[in-house]
């Protein structure tokens, strides 16, 4: 039952991510939490692939795609945070309420 342990790790990782996403006030930490959630998903993808053992390695390929997209997302996210920090001297997400109606 090796799959169960993988899934457990992934679920824990995802829960930590959700917790960090909702609780942390530092924007960088929020972004890191998102990364945790994405990696939890990657673990799931790879774990299921190892069980299903498709000839095309769909799970692995998809995980690589997620990593790539995550890298891009982090790049953009950090850039946004950097710009906001330059303007507001703060990385606190509670201060980022400019989009309010």
């Amino acid at each position: 039952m090796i799959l169960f342990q993988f899934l457990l790790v992934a679920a824990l990782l995802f829960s930590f991510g959700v917790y960090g996403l909702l609780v942390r006030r530092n924007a960088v930490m929020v972004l890191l939490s998102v990364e945790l959630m994405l990696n939890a998903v990657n673990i799931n993808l790879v774990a299921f692939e190892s069980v299903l053992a498709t000839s095309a390695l769909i799970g692995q390929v998809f995980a690589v795609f997620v990593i790539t997209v995550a890298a891009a997302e982090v790049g953009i996210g950090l850039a946004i945070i950097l710009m906001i920090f330059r303007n507001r001297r703060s990385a606190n997400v509670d201060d980022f309420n400019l989009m309010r109606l």
Partner: protein
Amino acid sequence: MSTFPLTYALQEHAGDGGALAQYAGVMLVVPFLAFLLIILIGKRLPRQGAEIAIGAMAIDFVYALALFFRNATEGIVHEEQFEIARFGFGGGRQVAFEWGWVVDGLSTMMFLVVTLVALLVFIYAVGYMKGEIRVTFFFAALCLFAGSMMLLVAAPNLVQLIVGWEGVGLASYLLIGHYWEDRANSSAAMKAFYVNKVADIGLILGTVILAVTAGTFRINEILAQAEEGAAALGAVAVVAGLLIFFGAMGKSAQFPLHVWLPDAMAGPTPVSALMHAATMVTAGVYLIARMFPFYEGMAADARPWILGIGTVTLVIGAMLALVQDDIKRVLAYSTVSQLGYMVAALGAGGYVAGLFHLWTHAFFKALLFLAAGSVIHAVHSNNMSEMGGLRTSLPRTYWTFIVGSLALAGIPPLAGFWSKDEILATFDHAGVTAVFWLGVATAFLTAFYTFRMVLLTFHGSYKGHAHPHESPRVMTVPLMILAVGAIAGGFVLIPGIFSGFHHWVEVRQVFNPEEVEAGFDLAALIPGLIAAVSGVVAAWFVYSPDAETQEARDRVSIPGLYPLLRHKYYLDDIYWYGIVQPIKGPLARGVNWVNQYVIDGVVNGVGAVTMALSRFVYGALDQKGIDGVVHGVSAATDSAGTALRRLQSGRVQQYAAGFVVGALVLVLAVVVLR
């Protein structure tokens, strides 16, 4: 002198005028387009719409001139008719209403006269009306006036003729009452309208009789039937002829319907000039000329009436002109008298003579009116008792006025001499000796009152208070052009030398040569000439010595006759106390009663019901129903928006929490519902 073989040759070889005549309808459309355009945008233009009016009239004038030359060289007989409506009545008979235009000798001559005089008057009016009120409207109405006259002259059928006829009446009403703030002016406008309306009844009845009998409104077909001697038409010809002549009496100011014309002087002077020379009063003469073959053949018994009315008119008009103080009224009564000449000439069978006088009269009467307008413009008064000695301060006006006066008096070689001689010769040849001598006597009176006017206005010492000054060029140049016409206009018909005019107006589809030729006639020429010259000389002896007051200057005063003339033969009083008051009294009271108790009751009842209904509609339906729904929708939208805006906090983590909760709900749903 007989010109008939040549005339027939002309008629046989008359062309159809080609494209020029085919599109002559352009001339009818342009003034009405100008009318609409002036109404719409005239006020915004620098000259307040005058440029549009002048442009339109210039187009028409050039077109008319082209037609005129074509007719003079080869003759045109052309007719266009478009059916616009068809009405059937008992027995399967149908009557078509048509529009179109007829281009022949008569109408091309009228086109030229109307457009030439109208163009010059429009140009003159730019100067005359400068700074006056409602200039835009004035020019719009002038366009309507000229356009209606063109419509009338071009009419190939009686329906279109009546439409143009009434259009002229309407426009004259608007223009005579141009300064309607003054009650006298609006009364004069209404008088002109009513008197013409009375006469119009005759025209309309005559038209209906002719159309029903002949089965067509087309003038040429009616005339052709009259030529063939259709029995049905013959039975009603005299009655219809007299009724149509009654219509012509109104427009052409024949006794006893001439009373509107002098009062029409209330309008601005350019209007008077246009009305007297070209557009309105010639309509009746034109109508008789258009129907001339009818009056010459079938309705010949109506002709003595035409001759008689014309003769009475020419005499009484000239006598009334003797005693007037208002310079425009002298000219107005002079017009009445000259129209009498034209009508009497047509009544005596002198088709060409009557039209020739219309032609020359258009030039010199337009000239005299415009020159009188120039004088009035200078001294700010119509009364000759406030003029005098103006020849030094208004030299150009003076000389052109002299030319017009000599033409009116019939002094050779000016235009009036040739046409008046032609008319007198017609009377002589027709064998109506009494009319001939009355015509000669009136020629004397004409010369006399004309030079009375000239001397009282321009000679002696100045008696007014304003400081007279010569009018601007925009006013004097039209005077000079018309003066050329008044000098040369008569040379188109010199008996024995050049008879161009004769051929021009005789090119017609249906034409029977007149019984009475005019031509060269020493027996007519010499008395007429003596009368004219002695009239001028007599006026010189009576009026050239100056005096302080008008009464002293007006030396001639015949007891009995002069009071009669000053009161205009009491005609206005007869009409007022004999016709207007009896109708006004009982009829007005009756109408008032009906108005008070019947019509007002109905109107008030309808009003009350409407009020109640509208109150219900307002209170119950509009305020509570429709407005309630509208307000409810907006209030709901407003409160929903207020509630929902709290969600939009801008806090990223709240949104994220929303996502998470939503995802959890979905997962739970999948688990539970599985």
